[in-house]
């Protein structure tokens, strides 16, 4: 691909690459390997993790931290929640983004509407956490409800709801999913909207002339054509969700049944390094399939160039 006209020494490319390669080796590759090694050590990294084994309890030897990561009830809760985020929140968000991309295409104030939906992408998860904590706020004392949601409910004559500290863990999780969707629907919308633009209008016109209604045009023609993009958006969202931390940390800190993997990892980062690292390894293991998928997709694209 590179032009052969210009002579180049065998050393030249490496001079250009050197700084970037060293930094990446030092800050990504080396720590990743260290993390795996530390996951087999104890609280401080001084001894093998097997010292944490209690007599009479099940023990996985050097993999004791992994026993924790895979069998402890709070970890199981975190794994369950991450799975639910992926199974329920991701399709919801991608769906909302797609719906919005299709709908705004038909109105004149498209740009304004899209900018507003997209804007949460610019702010931090912490900022979003504050914004939504205020929406969900529950006044338990004597004052009026100053959170929008509970004000609406009490205004209609209902009882205020504990959106984030409910005894029903599903309520708390759904509240967090809504925050996530608010943040990411704009991301999905933007990418899907670009894909929709790329669908040739002749095909759409032709099927309309053949008598297909808008619903059929969307599901039979448009959707199959943008399917590759839907997959890309979905895999990106899955990665985002596997790593989800800030929202949960700020809004519930994993209490009341809302624990997630990354928050567990953070909780142990000082108190029990071995466990923390084992949880991190669990996290990267879960992302490996998507990593492989991304590399494959990249290879295919390169061949088509």
């Amino acid at each position: 691909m590179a032009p052969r006209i210009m002579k180049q020494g065998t050393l030249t490319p490496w001079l250009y690459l050197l700084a970037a390669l060293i930094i990446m080796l030092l800050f990504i590759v080396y720590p990743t390997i260290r993390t795996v090694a530390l996951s087999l050590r104890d609280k401080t990294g001084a001894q093998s993790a097997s010292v944490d084994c209690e007599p009479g309890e099940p023990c996985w030897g050097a993999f004791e931290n992994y026993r924790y990561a895979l069998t402890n009830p709070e970890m199981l809760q975190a794994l369950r929640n991450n799975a639910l985020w992926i199974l329920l929140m991701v399709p919801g968000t991608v769906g909302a983004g797609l719906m919005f991309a299709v709908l705004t295409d038909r109105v004149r104030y498209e740009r304004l509407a899209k900018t507003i939906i997209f804007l949460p992408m610019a702010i931090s998860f912490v900022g979003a956490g504050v914004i939504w904590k205020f929406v969900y706020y529950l006044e338990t004392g004597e004052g009026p409800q100053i959170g929008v949601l509970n004000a609406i409910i009490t205004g209609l004559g209902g009882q205020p709801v504990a959106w984030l500290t409910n005894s029903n863990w599903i309520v708390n999780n759904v509240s967090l999913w809504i925050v996530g969707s608010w943040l990411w629907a704009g991301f999905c919308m933007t990418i899907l909207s670009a894909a929709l633009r790329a669908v040739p209008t002749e095909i759409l016109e032709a099927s309309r002339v053949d008598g297909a209604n808008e619903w059929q045009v969307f599901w039979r023609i448009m959707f199959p054509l943008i399917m590759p993009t839907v997959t890309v958006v979905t895999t990106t969202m899955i990665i985002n969700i596997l790593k989800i931390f800030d929202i949960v940390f700020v809004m519930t800190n994993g209490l009341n049944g809302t624990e997630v993997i990354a928050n567990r990892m953070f909780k142990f980062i000082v108190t029990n390094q071995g466990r923390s690292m084992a949880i991190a390894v669990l996290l990267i293991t879960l992302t490996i399939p998507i990593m492989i998928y991304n590399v494959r997709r990249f290879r295919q694209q390169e061949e088509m160039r």
Partner: protein
Amino acid sequence: MSAEHLKRILGRIPLHVVIISMVVIWLVPTLGVFVTSFRSREAVRTSGWWTVLSKPPVPSQQEYATACASCHGADGKGVAAADLSDPEVVGEYTRTNRLLQMLRQEIDGQPHVDDPEWHDLIQDQSRTKEALEKLTAVSQHLGTLSGGGQAVDYGLTTANWVDALVGYKGTTTYQQDCATGVSESGKFKCDASDLLNPEGMARAFLNSLLVTVPATLLPILFAAFAAYAFAWLDFRGRTWMFALLVGLQIVPLQMTLVPIAKLYSRLGLESSFFGIWLFHTGFGLPYAIYLLRNFLGGLPQDLFESIYLDGANHWTAFWRLALPLSVPAIASLGIFQFLWVWNDLLVAIILLPGNPVLTYQITNLIDPRGGNWHLLTAAAFLSMAIPMLVFLVFQRYFVRGLLAGAVKG
């Protein structure tokens, strides 16, 4: 207008309703925080932010005017025997039912209250609750008149922003404390140096800038060199190395934090800006190289051939051709990296605890009992102002960067 045309317009109403309601739902949460950041602590606690444009929930002055002002006067001094601006007189009637009892009694054989509507209300035993509600307003106004009450100021104020900037966490406001000389245990000097208070958002803002600007520029610089090599130079391992880079893009941050933190503590780089710049550079590089290489590789080959034919070497080609042409891609990348670093919380907590950035400082402000919304909302908006501005101004580049395959860890 033809019937056909009308039908089409009507048929589109549901579409508009759906879009507009979604836009409203997206805006309301942020709007609430924005409005709240301009309201006093008491106002936030006692009424929802959406009431800000309506009349104050208790129009105390008006109630007082109808019920009492005809005798007592607007300033409360109309009746010398019962001076309503005297805290001692008013102090006996802070509880509204005592006030009601008193108003029900006749004075010199005349009803206490002149206004016929008020008179009926006060004497009607079945409407006691309603009367008490109205008297709350009167009692509140009496409090204001006598100077002893806690009248709630429902007007808009910038005090929260000042409090957030200097990190004031007392019970009144920073400006009030400074004006009355009660600066919180000598913590504040009440001059510009308070802006550097380590607990304040102004200092955090500065820290965020100090972290973000170099952590945005460094990866772009290193990535540009590497991307040039990947796009226009031949070397062994080019293909697989680049494929590896695609994979590295999604390595979770959590995988690398602890070993780096340990390394830093050995090198004496704990809580150093230099350390966090390097970390963000390392983490930003895979995506940065990927994006720039795809852009550079897409430039026409003739361009490079002709500049080489003119006798340019790679160094000149890089600075004179590749870099100027990639400005759009660099802009996309810069915005991405800027927003990413500015909004980061996890890396900042672990690697820079001594110099809290905006996101970290906000988490320090969160009160589980919800008692400081006035402060928290202002702080949150301080942290969001810059990224929102960057986003709105450079939205086009942001979208381009996103479409070029943003999958970043």
